[in-house]
Structures are given as structure tokens and as C-alpha cells.
């Protein structure tokens, strides 16, 4: 609300993810690859292995071209992107960690200078001096990772910083060490993967292939242990996300594990066992696996932080937690600095609010498009559900606006799809009921699933008994929106719920019991799934 919102066709968070994943991919290689180079060079010189030394020389040119240009510039790209998409959060991070970044910059400066000198002086520097430069590079690169790791982990686990606001508490937060070990392990894996790109064609091929595989194996063994350690240190609600409560997270976990295992399998088969099989297509597949591994990891790291970008300080939509109450009281039109219109009755205002409040993670259409999520919503229902938006799955920030704002945004969300025209018959009643359930209830409930299951409430009830509850939903529980669907949809929905709640349970289904207890946290954070998910 403080800054203008950069209106993009894709969610702003996706833009950050795109830049960040590519940067992290190369920058971790810059750390591990530097270590790989200097250790390999040292080994080659000691063994007087000319082929291996020649490999190091060629690899260092590739290394410099990739890390100095793409790696370094994409790092600046993250700075640019987060400043454009989340200026409030960036400003907070800068005010907390400017000296950490300044220190990181010193290491970055040394790293760049060392990389240039290392790549350029194979013929001119004595062996000992060249190795010294290589070691300086690695130490500077790893220290750069050390510092940045503190800032990144702070965003999910600020720890005691919340009370003390002390730099040291923020920097050396609960996940600092496990994350550092995990990132170092990843950098080893990437060192091995990228090591294959300049694999010699003839002499030394087998030695290099096995050597690179060894690096991958070492990283691959340390990584799961460090991730387990990391998992133990993250907040409980983040653990629940990772435990498979959300479909996207489940896919990312499976994807990350699969890519890593596939990479390890390739390293064993084509790196250790049959190095002659390590041909360009296989290397390309390895690179894809590495990118997939990083992509999944970064996606999960970002996702488990939701709804926050800085835990308990700033929400994912760049809204300060401290501002929410004021916005709910005064309304956005009286608070935001940059609005396209302040006419709260206009359609443009609703669209503007959508970009302001939702645009960081959602677009109207396409990837993370809201049109699919609000299909079947009318303006009244949309405006009502916005009050409870933080209740959905615990990943959404609270809605920050007054009633006029909610109505305006509700109208906009309802306008994303044409109104439903359903012809309900006995033949399609169940199917339509399922569709209505997905639109009206499925964002917060399942019938027989493990997320706020309704079976316990509706088991042994007929469709008409289920339907009787609909009109009083809002008064039964203040966290529920009012039910306002047309009668035919209500009938179909009641039929579906009754049918599903009375269907025999499969063995894997969760116990059919309504979660108990209140769902609001004392920390004024959105409802924690921990309290609700069985």
C-alpha cells in the first residue's frame, strides 16, 4: 500500500522465482565449482597429471564465463526483482542486514577478482601462486554463501529477532546451520554435474567422470541429513505444508527427491561404472536434474514461509502485519499511496485491489490464475469469503481492506468467470454437487480427506438434513462465510456431501471427525493448519 504495485501479467512471486532459481543454480555451482577446481588442480599438480590439469584449465574458462557473467548478473537481478515486487520487504531486510550485505559484498568483490585472475593466469602464475588464488576464490565464495544464508533463513525463522531485533539473533537463527550445510552439499552436487560439461573426450575422461561423480555422491549423502535437520528446525506449520497438506508442495517434494535420485543414479551408472556413456545428452539430462532439484528446493523454501515473506512481519503480498488493522478500519482508498482510481464503486478499483493484494502470488488468468479458483463464486459470496481468506489453508494473508474494498474486490473476482447456468438432473446431481462443493467448500474442507474433513459432521445425515444447516453456517461459526447459493445448487451440494459422507471409507482415508478447537492464533497470524489438520 506504501509503494506502487508493478502490474504484471504473471504473479510477481513467479518472476522472483524465475530469476532466483536460475541464479541459485549457477551461484551454488560458483561455490562448489570453485572448490572442485582448486582441489582438482592441486591433485593434478601433485600427481603431475597433464590431462587432468588441462581439464582444469578448460573448465576454469567455462566456470568464469558462466559464474562471472550469468551468475553475478543474475544475482543483481534478484536485487532488482525483489525491489520491484516486494519493496516493503526488501526495505526491511536492508534495514536489518545492510552490514551483512556489505560484508557479503566484500567477499563478492574478492571472489570476482580471484575468479578473473584464476582463469587468466594458468600460464603466467607459478603453480603455488595459482593455487593460492584458487583457494582465496573458494573461501570468498563460501563466505558469501555463509552470509546470504543467514539472511535467507531469517525470512522463515527469525527466531529471537522478533523480540530483540538484534542483528546476531536474526543472522544466526534456528535454521542457519542446517541450511548452510544443505547449501554446501548442493554446491558439491552441482560442482560434479557441471564438471561433466567440460569432460575430456579422450585422455583423462574416465578419471574426471569418476572424480565428478564422487563430488555428487558426497553432496548427495550429506543433503538428506541436512534437510532432515532443517525440517526439524522450521516452524510446525511449515512442517505441515511439507508433510503433504498441499498438493503443490507434495508435487515439489516428489519432484525434488526424484530429480536428486535420478542425478545420483546417472552419476553412478554413467560416471562411475561406464564413463563412456557420459555423452552430451546424458550430461544435459544431469543439468536438467540439477535445475529441477534447485527449482523444487527453492519453491519449497518459499512456499513453506507462506503467508509470510518475513515471518510475522511482512506478508507475501508485501503488506506489513502491523498495517492490517488500520487498513481494515480505514479502507485501502484512504490509505494506499498509488491507486489507479479511488472510486470504490468502479470496476477498475476492484481490479486495482486485486493487483495490490493478490498480484504477488496470483494472476487473473494463467499460472496461479484466480479465475479457476473462483469459478462459481458470485460477488456476494466472494466479498464474504474475503473476510475469511486467511482461514483457507493457512497460506493466505488476511484481507486488508474495509467492507467497500471487499465488495469491490468481490465484484472483480466474480467477473472473472461467466455465471454458472446449471441444468441439474437426477443423472448429474452428484457431479454438479461435487462442482459446487469445490467452489463453495473445497477451499477449506474435504469430506473424507485429511484437511478439515466434514464426514464427522454429516455422517448418517440425509441430503435434506445437510441442506438444513446451510442457511445458518455463518452464525454457527464466525470463520464460515454465509451460504447464498441458489436452491438447485444447494440441493446438489447437500446431495453430494451426504453421499460422500455416507460412502464406505477406503483404508487410506482419514478418520471422519471434525477438527476441534478455535482456529485463530494468538500471534495474530493466520490460522495454523497445525491446529486443524489431523
Amino acid at each position, binding site marked *: 500500500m*506504501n*509503494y*506502487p*504495485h*508493478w*502490474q*504484471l501479467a504473471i504473479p510477481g512471486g513467479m518472476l522472483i522465482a524465475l*530469476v532466483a532459481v536460475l541464479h541459485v543454480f549457477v551461484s551454488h555451482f560458483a561455490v562448489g565449482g570453485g572448490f572442485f577446481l582448486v582441489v582438482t588442480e592441486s591433485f593434478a599438480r601433485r600427481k603431475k597429471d597433464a590431462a587432468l590439469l588441462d581439464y582444469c584449465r578448460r573448465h576454469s574458462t567455462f566456470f568464469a*564465463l558462466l559464474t*562471472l*557473467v*550469468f551468475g*553475478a*548478473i*543474475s*544475482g*543483481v*537481478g534478484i*536485487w*532488482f526483482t525483489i*525491489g*520491484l515486487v516486494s*519493496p516493503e520487504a*526488501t*526495505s*526491511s531486510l*536492508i*534495514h*536489518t542486514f*545492510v*552490514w551483512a*550485505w*556489505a*560484508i557479503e*559484498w*566484500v*567477499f*563478492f*568483490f*574478492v571472489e*570476482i577478482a*580471484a575468479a*578473473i*585472475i584464476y582463469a587468466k*593466469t594458468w600460464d*603466467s*602464475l607459478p603453480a603455488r*601462486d595459482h593455487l*593460492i*588464488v584458487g583457494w*582465496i576464490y573458494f573461501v570468498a565464495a563460501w563466505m558469501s554463501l555463509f552470509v546470504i544464508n543467514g539472511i535467507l533463513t531469517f525470512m522463515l525463522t527469525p527466531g529471537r529477532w522478533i523480540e530483540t*531485533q538484534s*542483528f*546476531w539473533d536474526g543472522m544466526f537463527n534456528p535454521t542457519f546451520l542446517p541450511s548452510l550445510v544443505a547449501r554446501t552439499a548442493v554446491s558439491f552436487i552441482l560442482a560434479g554435474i557441471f564438471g561433466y560439461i567440460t569432460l575430456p573426450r579422450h585422455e583423462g575422461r574416465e578419471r574426471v567422470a569418476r572424480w565428478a561423480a564422487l563430488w555428487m555422491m558426497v553432496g548427495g549423502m550429506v543433503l538428506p541429513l541436512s534437510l532432515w535437520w532443517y525440517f526439524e528446525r522450521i516452524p510446525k506449520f511449515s512442517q505441515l505444508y511439507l508433510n503433504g497438506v498441499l498438493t503443490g508442495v507434495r508435487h515439489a517434494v516428489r519432484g525434488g527427491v526424484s530429480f536428486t535420485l535420478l542425478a545420483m543414479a546417472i552419476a553412478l551408472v554413467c560416471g562411475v561404472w561406464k564413463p563412456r556413456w557420459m555423452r552430451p545428452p546424458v550430461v544435459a539430462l544431469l543439468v536438467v536434474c540439477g535445475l529441477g532439484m534447485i527449482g523444487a528446493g527453492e519453491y519449497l523454501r518459499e512456499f513453506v514461509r507462506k503467508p509470510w515473506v518475513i515471518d510475522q512481519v511482512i506478508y507475501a503480498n508485501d503488506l*506489513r502485519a*502491523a498495517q492490517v488493522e488500520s487498513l481494515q478500519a480505514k479502507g485501502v482508498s484512504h490509505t494506499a*499511496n*498509488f491507486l*489507479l482510481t479511488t472510486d470504490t464503486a468502479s470496476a477498475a478499483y476492484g481490479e486495482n485491489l486485486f*493487483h495490490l493484494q493478490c498480484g504477488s502470488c496470483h494472476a487473473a488468468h494463467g499460472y496461479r490464475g484466480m479465475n479457476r479458483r473462483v469459478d462459481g463464486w458470485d460477488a456476494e459470496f466472494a466479498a464474504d469469503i474475503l473476510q475469511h481468506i486467511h482461514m483457507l489453508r493457512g497460506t493466505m494473508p488476511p484481507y486488508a481492506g474495509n467492507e467497500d474494498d471487499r465488495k469491490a474486490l468481490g465484484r472483480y473476482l466474480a467477473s472473472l468467470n461467466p455465471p454458472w447456468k446449471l441444468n441439474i438432473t437426477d443423472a448429474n446431481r452428484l457431479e454438479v454437487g461435487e462442482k459446487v462443493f469445490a467452489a463453495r467448500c473445497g477451499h477449506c474442507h474435504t469430506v473424507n480427506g485429511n484437511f478439515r474433513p466434514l464426514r464427522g459432521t454429516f455422517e448418517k445425515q440425509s441430503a435434506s438434513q445437510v441442506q438444513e444447516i446451510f442457511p445458518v453456517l455463518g452464525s454457527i461459526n464466525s470463520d464460515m462465510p454465509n451460504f447464498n447459493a441458489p436452491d438447485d445448487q444447494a440441493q446438489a451440494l447437500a446431495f453430494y456431501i451426504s453421499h460422500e459422507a455416507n460412502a464406505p471409507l477406503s483404508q487410506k482415508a482419514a478418520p471422519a471427525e471434525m477438527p476441534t478447537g478455535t482456529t485463530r492464533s494468538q500471534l495474530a497470524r493466520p490460522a495454523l493448519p497445525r491446529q486443524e489438520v489431523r
Partner: protein
Amino acid sequence: MQTLPIPHVDPLPLPGPVWLFTALLLVVFTLHVAAMNSALGGGIWALWNYLRGRHSEHPFSRRLARELAAMLPSFLAFTVTLGVAALLFVQVLFGNFLYTSSILIGALWLSVIPLVMVAYYGFYYFSYTAEKGKGIAGCVLAISVCVLLGIAFIFVNNMTLMQSPERWLQMYRAHPNGWNLNLGDHSLVPRYLHIVNGAIALFSAILAHLGMRRMKVDAEYGRWIVQRSAMVFAACSGLQFLFGMWLLLAIPRQIAMSLLRDPLTGAVFGLALMSVVCAVLLVLLGSLAEKPGPLVHAGFGVSLLTLFLMVCLRYLLRLAYLKPYVSLGALAVRPQLGVIVIFLFLFVGGLATVGYMLWLVARSRNARVRAEVPN
């Protein structure tokens, strides 16, 4: 009180005193501009000499283009590296202005990243192929130089826009997708010309300094570089006066007047004028002298001093623009003393480490030269 839509400053206090951030900003920005001038000015010099050197009657041009080709990627590397530090410190002091203007030109601002990559890889390509003197090396270098000129234009847009909050809301409402430029600002064009021309000028002074070093190996070639660069340095410095005057006339009258009335700004301005005249005279006289060394080196030093003074002047100009909206002295400060000390310690250590690596390189080069000279 202003009613413009200026974002509030961050509720967290500044983690260090304003004077320290200001000093660091001025120092690293000066170094960044020196590196940027080397990349842009050096690129233009390399392109001109590469094209000229394709004809056999200009062997020195070909040689100079080749030598510059090897340096350009490093110049750009340090432009970026030093620019990161400047970006860091300017965000601390003026974040609410910089983030806003960046978002307003977001699409173009973000395009800087791929553009820098294109220029950077272009420089690398040129460095690997310039030796042959044929093919598309010249075209690639020309693209890199054009891209750098484009990046400079985007930067000038952002830097002028961040100090013009009165334009923001209208601009945002026109194009909330970030496809804006600050073309309505009268100071945009002279400021851009001042920066681009300044880059050529300063790199010419740097080149004169490099020419002196070449004279030790090849007197004729070295003198050729010194004379050429001195001439360009003098010509561009003359043009700088014109662009500077244009810039002064283009900025709003009350800001120009407040600048001229301010004793500190007046002193910096006067010193900058004197130092640039002094630098031009020293380099020109040096290029004509029998032993140009001391004069050219002094001229190079004074031109760096001029650059620092111009950076200070630019900072004072920003303060004058933002005077109605910002008071740096009123910002809450809670210094993180322990970390500041560690940073300063590491900063010195980092410089020493880079110095040590350069010393290793110089030592081995000297050893090679000694080995090549017959006893």
C-alpha cells in the same frame, strides 16, 4: 506539508549513522563510475580503434583495440561489482524514492539485467576474437557498446525520476505495468549526454595513464596512445562544460538557485571546475612534453579527483531535489556497532587480499620480463 504519494520510510531504524552511509556511498559510487567509464568509454575507444585498425596503415589502432579487448570484460565485472555496493547504500538512505521510481519504470529497469549480460558476453566474445581482426567481432562489440549506452539511458531515467515525486502518480496511472520513461524531465537529455561524454573523457585520462606504461616497452606506441587520449580528453572535457551548462539550465530554477547559493555546493562546484581545467592542462602538456610521465600521471590523478567531486555534486543535487520531502538527519538511527567494525575490518582485509593477488600477478610478470632480458 507535501501531499505527494511518497512512501513512508521504513519503520526500522537505520543500522548505522547517516554520515557513514553517505561516505561509503560516495566512495563506492565514485569507484563504480570509474569502472563504468572504463567499460563504456573503453568500449567506444576499442570499437573506434578496431574499425580503424582494419586498415593496414593503422597498426597502433589495431594493437590498442586488441589490448583493450582483453580488459573490457574485467572493466564490466568491476562496474557491476562496485555498482552492487552503491545500490546497497543508496537503498538505505533513499530506498522509498528509489524503489518507487524503479517500479514506475519496472519493465525497463529489469531489462537492465539481460542487457548487461548481452554486453558482458559481447565483450568476452570480442576479447576472444579481436586478435583475428575479422568476422563479426566488430559488430558484436558495437552491439555491446550500444547496449551499454541503452543501460546508461535507463539508469539516468531512474535517477532523475527518483527525485521527482511530483511525476509519480500520473506516470503510474498512465502505465502501471512499468513501461514508463521520464522523458518529461528537461534535465534527462543533458544529464545523459553529460554522463556518456564524461565516460569517454575519463577513460581517455585513464588511457593516457596506461599509455605511459606502454612507453616503457614501446616508446612510439606509448606516445601515440598518450597523444591521442590527451586530445580526446581535452575535447570531451570541453564538451562537458557545454553539457554541464545545459544541465544547469535544465534543472528547475529554484533548485539551481538553491544549489548555487549553498556554500558547500559552491565550493565543490568551484573545485570541480578548477580540477577539470587542471587535469586537462596537465594531460595536454604531458602529451607534448619530452618526458610526459609526471604530468600525465598527475593529470590522471586530478581527473579522478574531479570525478569524486562530480559525484559529490550529484549527491548534493539529489539532496536539493529531495529537500522538501526528506530529512536524513531526522531518520531514527540504531547503529549495529559490532557488525560495522567487522565490515570495516573485512573491507580493508578484502582490499588487501585483492592487492595481494595483484601483487602475485605483477611479481610473476616482472620475473618473466627479467628472464627474457639477456644478461
